[in-house]
Structures are given as C-alpha cells and as structure tokens.
C-alpha cells in the first residue's frame, strides 16, 4: 500500500476525493509518523486526537467537495488558532490560548483541511536557523556526515515538518526570507506572496509592513493550491489587497517560451560558494533551453537591502511587541511596581535575539536618530522598490539563488548576529519591495544537501512565478532524499 505521507497535497486530496483512502486513514498515517518524530522537535503543540476525530467526521459526512478535504496540516505557531495554544515560540506567550482563528488558517479549515498541530519557529519569527525558539532547536531531516543541521528560519518547524512528511503542506510567514530560506535548506517549495495577497489578521506580528503568510509545500502545484485557498481580501486587514478570486492551480502551465528572465549582477556576492554559483548557471541554462530569454539586469541598491531591512524590521517589531507586557495575557513576572513588573516580565519572557531587535528598533526610532536611521531606511526602501520597477520594464521574473549557502550546523552563527543576518541577503529585497518570490529545490550538493533557486515576480503576478517554477521543477525532477534516521 502507498505510504500516504509521501503523497503531495494535491495527490492526498485526490486520494480522499476518489476514495482511495479515507480521511481517517490519511490523517492516521501522519499521526503515526508524527508520533515517531519527536526528535526533530518540529511541533510546539500537537492536536492529533482532535485531528482524528475531525477526519472521522469528514468520512461520516461523506462530503468530499472541499479544496483541501481531509488534508492534515500543521501551521507555524505564529497563526492564532482558536482554543489551541499559540506561542510564537516565545516564553512570553507560552500559555496563550486564543479565542479566535487567524484569517489564513480559518480559510484552510473552511476547505476541510485538518489542523494537526503548531510548528516550531524562531521566537517571534526572528532568526534564520530556528535556534532562537523558546522550545528548542528543530532538526533538519538532512544531515551532514551524520551531524545535525539547522532547518533554517524562522519557519524551521514548517520546513522540517514538510520535508520529513509530518504535514501534507503548511503555511509559514516570511518577513525577510522566513519561508524561502528554510524551504531552501530542507528541499521543499516555499512561496512568499505579494504583500497584501494574504490577510495578516490573527498572525502574531513581527514587522507589519514586511510580514506575509505563504505556503511551504512538497511541490509547486501544492503551493499553487495552498495559495488559492489562503489568499484573498480581508476587511479586517487594512493592508490586504482587493483582488479577484485566484485560480493559480488551474491556470498553472509548463511553458516558459519567450519568458524574459532577469539575472541581477548584484546577487553575485563575494565568497559565494562555487556550488551556489554553478546552481545559478544551471537554472539559467534550464530556462534558456526551454525557450526563455535571459537578460542581465541591475538592481543597484541591493547592497543596501540588508541594513535597510535590519532597521525597518526591528523598528516595527519594537512597537509590535510592546503589547506583551504581562498585563492582560501571557507570561508575567511580578515586581514591586508596574515598571518593575514590565522589566521582569519582558526580561524573562523574551529571548536574547528578540531583545536585541527590540533594542535596535527602539534606538532607530528614538528622537535624534529617527531621521538618520528609520527615515533614511524608508527612503532606501523606496529606491529598492524602484530598482525592481525598472527591472520589470524588461523582464517578467528574476532568478537568483535563495541562500548563499546550504544548511549549516548548529551554533555556527549564534555568536555572530551579522553572519546570521547574511542568510537573508537574497531574500529580504522581496519583502522590502512587497514582491512575490518563490524558493524551489533544484539539486543536492556533493554532501547531499538541498540547494535552491529563487524567483522574484511582479507585484500580484504569482501566476507567472508559479508557472516558471513549475517548468523548472519538471526539468530538474528533484526528489526527496530524506532518510528516516531519527525514527
């Protein structure tokens, strides 16, 4: 019998719809696997019993018409889920149970997907290795000479869980690369939609002008299906965009003939490993061989993207995280007066990286420094946007590597925040410009680690992005090489 957990999301649903398996069997297969995978530490909270009873209900009702019917889905622990603990992987929210459901997850359950748990991540999505979580490291299912590797971050739990077949697909959030970088490190597909494509309502905020929810899946079609479900205007989010109902999956095409692909010279950074440069060339060749037109382009302000990002994101975070004050919900450490209670709560409730970013953010917004940092960063952000606007006069998509290196070992960058921040060097521009971008696994390096390419699309043109990624996927025929070493 087929191992149901090896199926893609699209295949799972087909199985259920065609009654090749029941929803209970499908969920059961995942539950079994999840129960044997604690070592990976992907889950902050599991909801397996409820998942099974929901599956039974679907089987009893015998209505299999919904888009995600029976699909077991775990989501990043940043999405508020009604009556199920939502922690943002932080101590400060370690006991928080929302009374409400985020718009994005609500859309999943409305299509009869089944929640199986909440996935580990960096604390408040701040990190590139999942090492800042209050609930411990997540292990990458891929290893280097039997040594554990980080899954990337911040959606590390999402990435490992998808790669290790612990969820049929998932939704993560991407503020500077938090979907794409871990997707690249674990050999899965990660899509950050255009800013405003998916509602942010009910997602624990990190940096409001950059945060965007998006799918992390086993392949491109799954990403298209997930995006069809989770996207859409939400009157509860003033920054969400009014766009007609999408049909990404049904419109997907394996055709890049005449597609103009930009290759930005600024992404060829110093000390980029040869394997990553070779990967990039391979990607270019594949597209060219299939009829795409390759163009060298320039995005001149790219070098300012990382510093710009590390001003804007902490600035917004410093304000967004002010509500975690021990007064109304979450963790509280008492003090002799209000100020001391704040200090104790926030000192003990937040981890080091979160505190670092709150301090950076507070600094760049403070009077006397605002103009030099925050205001200037906003101006540079506009220049970065204009770089893309100019580039898109000549090209339809832009091709780059997703990350400068494959997955690395634990502790490699933990003492050097700047080195850690460099992980986001290719991904932050999409967030700053609000553009959609997708990370696609291409091949394995000589050590057996996944390598991935990234495609940027035009604003609200996820379709072209998905089509291009789908075409490449058909050519490279990337297959999971996860060995169940942890079981």
């Amino acid at each position, binding site marked *: 019998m087929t191992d149901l957990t090896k199926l893609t999301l699209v295949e799972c649903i087909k199985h259920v719809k065609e009654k090749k398996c029941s929803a209970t069997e499908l969920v059961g297969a995942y539950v079994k696997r999840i129960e044997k995978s604690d070592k990976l530490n992907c889950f902050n909270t599991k909801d397996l019993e409820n998942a099974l009873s929901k599956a039974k209900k679907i089987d009893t009702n015998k209505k299999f018409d919904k888009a995600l019917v029976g699909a077991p889905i775990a989501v990043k622990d940043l999405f*508020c889920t009604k009556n199920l603990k939502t922690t943002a992987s932080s101590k400060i929210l370690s006991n928080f149970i929302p009374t409400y459901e985020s718009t994005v997850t609500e859309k999943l359950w409305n299509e009869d997907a089944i929640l199986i748990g909440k996935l580990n991540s960096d604390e408040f999505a701040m990190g590139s290795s999942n090492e800042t979580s209050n609930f411990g490291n997540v292990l990458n299912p891929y290893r280097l000479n039997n040594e554990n590797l980080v899954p990337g971050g911040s959606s590390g739990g999402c990435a490992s869980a998808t790669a290790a077949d612990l969820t049929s697909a998932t939704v993560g959030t991407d503020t500077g690369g938090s979907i794409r970088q871990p997707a690249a490190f674990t050999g899965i597909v990660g899509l950050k939609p255009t800013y405003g494509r998916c509602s942010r309502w009910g997602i624990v905020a990190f940096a409001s002008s950059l945060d965007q929810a998006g799918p992390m899946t086993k392949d491109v079609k799954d990403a298209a299906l997930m995006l069809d479900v989770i996207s859409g205007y939400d009157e509860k989010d*003033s920054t969400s965009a009014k766009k007609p109902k999408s049909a990404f999956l049904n419109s997907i095409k394996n055709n890049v003939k005449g597609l103009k692909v930009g290759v930005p010279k600024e992404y060829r950074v110093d000390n980029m490993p040869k394997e990553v440069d070779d990967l990039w060339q391979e990607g270019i060749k594949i597209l060219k061989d299939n009829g795409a037109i390759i163009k060298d382009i320039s995005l001149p302000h790219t070098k300012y993207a990382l510093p710009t990002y590390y001003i804007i994101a902490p600035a917004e975070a*410093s*304000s967004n995280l002010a*509500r975690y004050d021990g007064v109304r919900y979450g963790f509280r450490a008492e003090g002799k007066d209000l100020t001391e209670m704040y200090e104790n709560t926030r000192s003990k409730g937040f981890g080091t990286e979160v505190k670092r970013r709150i301090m950076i953010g507070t600094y760049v*917004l403070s009077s006397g420094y*605002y103009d030099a940092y925050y205001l200037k960063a906003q101006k540079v952000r506009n220049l970065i946007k204009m770089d893309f606007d100019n580039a898109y006069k000549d090209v339809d998509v832009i091709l780059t590597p997703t990350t400068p290196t494959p997955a690395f070992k634990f502790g490699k960058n933990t003492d050097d925040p700047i080195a850690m921040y460099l992980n986001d060097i290719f991904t932050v521009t999409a967030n700053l410009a609000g553009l959609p971008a997708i990370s696609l696994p291409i091949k394995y390096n000589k050590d057996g680690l996944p390598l991935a390419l990234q495609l940027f699309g035009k604003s609200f043109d996820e379709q072209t992005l998905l089509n291009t990624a789908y075409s490449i996927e058909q050519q490279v025929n990337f297959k999971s090489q996860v060995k169940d070493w942890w079981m």
Partner: protein
Amino acid sequence: MSDKEFNYYISGETGKWEVVIGLEVHAQVSSNAKLFSSSSTQFGSEPNSQVSLIDAAMPGMLPVINKFCVEQAVRTGLGLKAKINLLSVFDRKNYFYADLPQGYQISQFKHPIVGEGEVVLDMSYGTKKIGIERLHLEQDAGKSLHDQDPIKTFIDLNRSGVALMEIVSKPDLRSPEEVAEYIKKLRSIMRYLGTCDGNMEEGSLRADVNVSVRKIGSKDFGTRCEIKNVNSIKFMQQAIQYEAKRQVELLEEGKKIDQETRLFDTKKNETRQMRSKEDAHDYRYFPDPDLPPLKFDQSFVDEIKKKLPELPDDKKERLIKDYKLSNYEAGVLISDKDTSDYFEDVAKNSDVKLAINWVIGDLFAALNKIGKSIKETPISSKNLSKLIQLIKNNTISGRIAKDIFELMVNDHRDPKVIVEEKGLVQESNVGELEKIIEKVLKDNSDKVAEYKSGKDKLFGFFVGSVIKESKGKANPALVNDILKKKLS
C-alpha cells in the same frame, strides 16, 4: 461693540505681565463605535464590557479605521473653517502604561486630518479670533482604577480605542476668561455639528493647557508649562491663574521657568510638577504600518459640507436680523443649539419680545432650579408659545401667566387646559371689574380720601388690591383705566 477694555494682566513688582495660553483640547468623537474597532462607546457601562480583541491588543489584531469618525473629524474641521487635508497619516505614539494595551497610541503626528482654522470669541471688549493650529484623530487609552483594592490596580478598557479629536489652538488666548469663552464656543460648535457631546463630567471634553508669561509689549514667548488633562472650565481658569502667578514670581526673582509638564491639584488649587523636560517621554513616533495613509477626495469633503448645519456665528447673525434681538440676547441663545432652536420654535408661533423674555428669564430660572437642561425641559416649546399667545390675546394676565408657568413646570400640561380648568381667564368685563373696584374703594375709603388729598402713590395700592380681590384675574390695563376715572 467694545464697552470694556481687555485688562487681564498679572501685576508684579517689575510691572505688568501678559499671560499667553494655548490649549490642546481632547474631544471625544460622537460615534457609536470606536476609532479602529466596532466596540460600543456607551458611557457608564460595566468595566471591560465594551472591549474587542483589538481594544485589548490581542496578538495578531489589526486596526480598521471607522469611516464615520473620519467624517466627524472633517465635519468639525469645516466647522472651524479649517483646511481639510485629503491625505493624512496615522502614527504610533509609543509608551508603556498599564491601561494602554498596545503599548502605543494610534494618533496623527506629522500629517493631521485637519489643518489651520479659527474660532471667533465674543468678548465684552469685542470679538477676538483664536487660531486653530490643527485637529487630528487619535485613540483614547483605558482607565486605571487605583481605588478598588488596597494593593492592586484594576484596568477598565471600555475607553480604550475610543476616538478623540485633539484640537490644538495657537497661543492666542490671553486670559482665563478667554479660555472659558474659547472652550464654550468650541463646545457649542461641536454640539451644533453633532461631532462631540462636550460633556466634561463624562470626560468627553478635556484639555491640556499651555501657559507662559511675558512682559507687556514683549514679542517673544516665554518658556511654557503644560498643565495636563484639566476637565472643567473652572479648573482651567484656576490652574491658569495659579500658574501665571507662579511663573511671574519666579521670573521676578530672577529665576528661570523650566519647560515641564504639570498637574493641577483641584483640592489645593495649585499646579505641581508631573515630569520635567528631561523625564519627558520619547514617544518614538512612526507611521503605523498597519494602516495605509488616510486618503479621500475633495468630493467626500464637499458632500459633508453640503449637509453642514447652521453654525453658532451664522445663527447669531440671523437671529439678530430676523428677530431684532440684541447682541446679548442672541449670544445667550446661540451658546446652546437646543436653546436657540427652542426659542425659534416659541417665537415663530407667538411674540418675539415675550418669547425672549420668557426663555431667557423664567424658563432659564426654572430649569436651573430643577437642575435640568433645555433638552429635558418640562415645558415644551409648543406649550410656552401657547402661554404667550394667551397673554398676547388678553386671555390671561402676565401675573396669572407666571402662576400657570409654575404649574406647567410641575405637570407638563397645556396652559389652555390649566386656564380653563382653574377658571383663570382674565376678567375684562367692565361691569364685573367696576363691581370689584367699587368694593375695594368702599373698603378703603380712608385711603381714597388720602389719595384725593394728593397722595398719588396710593394709586398702585388700589390697582394691587383690585387684582388681589379678583384673584389675579383682572385685566390690569382695564383696571387702570377704570380706577383713574373713578378716582378723578
């Protein structure tokens, strides 16, 4: 118009000082829902009964602007003859406090919804224009309750997120009296517009008062102190008086004024330091990334403009013109929209002169006595105009009218009904009156003799006695005529 000169100066040892005052008025927007959430704004509800997930700043909650509050701000801006900004920006004002759930207040810092405007004051020494610097929208915070428990502080978030308009005046005010007039005028304008109920007891209107002093003739502003959150006109005036005097004393001693935030202690009637400039918060303002800039078209403003009601200044002019009222009378009436509306209702159907006297005189006194506003008046405008008609057509005398008025205050009834029921119709039958007069003259024959021997003053006594004898019903004019004849 000026019958008096402006003369509010602080006399110090070194000469006279001028007081310079600017106000930041916080006016609660009249709206059923909050600025960024749909929670109710009903005053006096159970603590924390009007708190949405957004107001409590639960994780992942996002603000959505309430369009009605935007309209109210624009309406108020138009009422202040101010520039309406078609693009404005919401900023976050960051600070920690237990009753500020988000850890920031959403306000408008650099780009307010309303720009410069003006308010015209009618002072005894003439009219005075007070400049408006700006009006912006912002959220109110919740309330900390320190008196519910010996150790704990309780938080009530019902107010959290309620829409406020902060109306910032230019430093154009020069005396506590002008401040009082300014607040009254501003409140009156907003009540006419229906944009703020102006209820200071409920906290719908409060102000931060900026005070500085300078020598008469000086063009430079002195260092100012800001007195926070004063919630009555009386307290504002007292605070200014105290603060101006304090500053003059310091300056005359050769000391400097520190720019600082002060509190007014209503019990001790003094201001004292709340925080110095060094302790001032760094609010780290930045545009709220959850809210796109607020943009609307001129047509949106024009639509609101079309539906704008008549404003106090225009109404006053019209009342003077249409009803030939004095400046004072019109001023008294327009200070409250309901009062002037009431007056017009009465005057339209009766007599202007009588109407103004009854409204400003007897009605105001009666309302004052029973502690009710004109909105809650026991005497409807319809009934008061009926009463005036009864006087006008000689059905009742002015004296009887006063008695009927008293009855109307108590039982809200139609004066005609009372007159008929109590048989209070004025006696104008000459024969009947002569009978009464003859009786009075007969009973007071000694006084008649005195009168005839030259004591003219007694005429009033005879009139009074006749009216009394008639139980107030005698038509006084007729009584006069007949008496004169009889006594000649």
